[in-house]
């Protein structure tokens, strides 16, 4: 699984961090998404798909 984030689309909601905190974080200064692991292990796949689904700015995409 490969995760791609679009910082320009990100609205800093932080919903991705709530869904998958081992894969996503936010910058301290403006809350924009920080990708901690662009190739998360299979056991996190469910959380990561959930994170992509709940992002209100459609800023997370997943390439299998």
């Amino acid at each position, binding site marked *: 699984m490969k995760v791609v984030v679009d910082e320009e689309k990100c609205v800093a909601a*932080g919903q991705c961090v709530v869904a998958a905190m081992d894969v996503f974080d936010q910058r301290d200064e403006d809350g924009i998404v920080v990708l901690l692991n662009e190739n998360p292990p299979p056991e996190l796949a469910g959380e990561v798909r959930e994170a992509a689904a709940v992002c209100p700015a459609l800023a997370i995409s997943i390439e299998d």
Partner: protein
Amino acid sequence: MTGPARVLVVGASAAGLSTVEALRRKGYAGEVVVLGAEPHAPYDRPPLSKQVLSGAWEPDRAALRTLEALSALDADLVLGDSAVALDPVTRTVRTASGRELRADAVVIATGLRPRTLPGQEGLAGVHVLRTLDDALALRRNLSDGARLVVVGEGVLGAEITATARMLGLDVTMTGPQPAPMALQVGPLVSAALAALHHERGVRLRLGDGVVGLTAEGTRVTGVRLGTGEVLPADVVVVAIGAFPATEWLAGSGLCLENGVVCDTRCRAADGIYAVGDVSRWHHERLGRLVRLENRTNATAQATAVAGVILGADEPYVPVPYFWTDQFDAKLQVHGFLPVDADVDVVEGEVAARRFVARYRSGGVVTGVLGWNMPKQARLRRAEIDDVPALL
């Protein structure tokens, strides 16, 4: 997971599309039909008052999904046709063009319809903003230097005001509240918003209600306040809230009171569910009916309902979240912010325009608001999670 043989989703915006995606994500392999009133492929609404209105984004960029992603959902997308009636017993929806769509589960996701002022219809230069076509029509009218009056000081009105002002228009915001978003964020933060708008050159004519429009022939010329004063305008945007789009359900027997009334599982009747802006469901933890008009709820509620359709028996008990961008201010709101709450600034400073405010009602934390501190606000969300059924 098995579930019903056929699911019909009425509404092809964020809540409707998210329902389909969640069903597929959870392994549902049955038939899915999505009915959308608008002719466009599903698109996202938050950018309409910001990037689409300003012209920073071409409309395509607001698409909710690529055409490939839509086709991968293996759903029958029926666009440009609206639902006109529902028989909840046979779960059959009739459409404007005469289709009869029958399903084992029906999800109502028809959203909102903007409120308008008396005499607004058919008047040139007056706009609402709900759909992509609305946003594009308004954008064509926003020429540099024109006088725009925004009627409405809520979230949408404040965003349109900021976008138009940044485009160089002469903008007046008007509405009955004393400051922008006063009802949504309370006196401290709305006063800071008023200061920001004022500093950026917005005329604030707040505190008096609007009674109507003035016109010359079929073209708007101004906005009339309850005081008799007229605010001259070349263009007017009316952003005074919206009604749940439930007219088509009149006569269905469903309970319609400020939305489709649902139980704790977002179920309106056997096999009938409502999601997104149109859904007014029993929030089990708050112990009352709640209807939320925000983007994150559309997705979260859709996910919950997809689970219920497939047999999960969980109540939907979200901590609400919304954001708004106005000029360089990015506000993030978690939880509920009652207007009479006690508000403390717990990080940063209001004067620095970087802070987190905590809202307490009856001694418990009901919400937090971040102003240009999204991460710090989100980290305090956990403090809200223990709100008892007080609100």
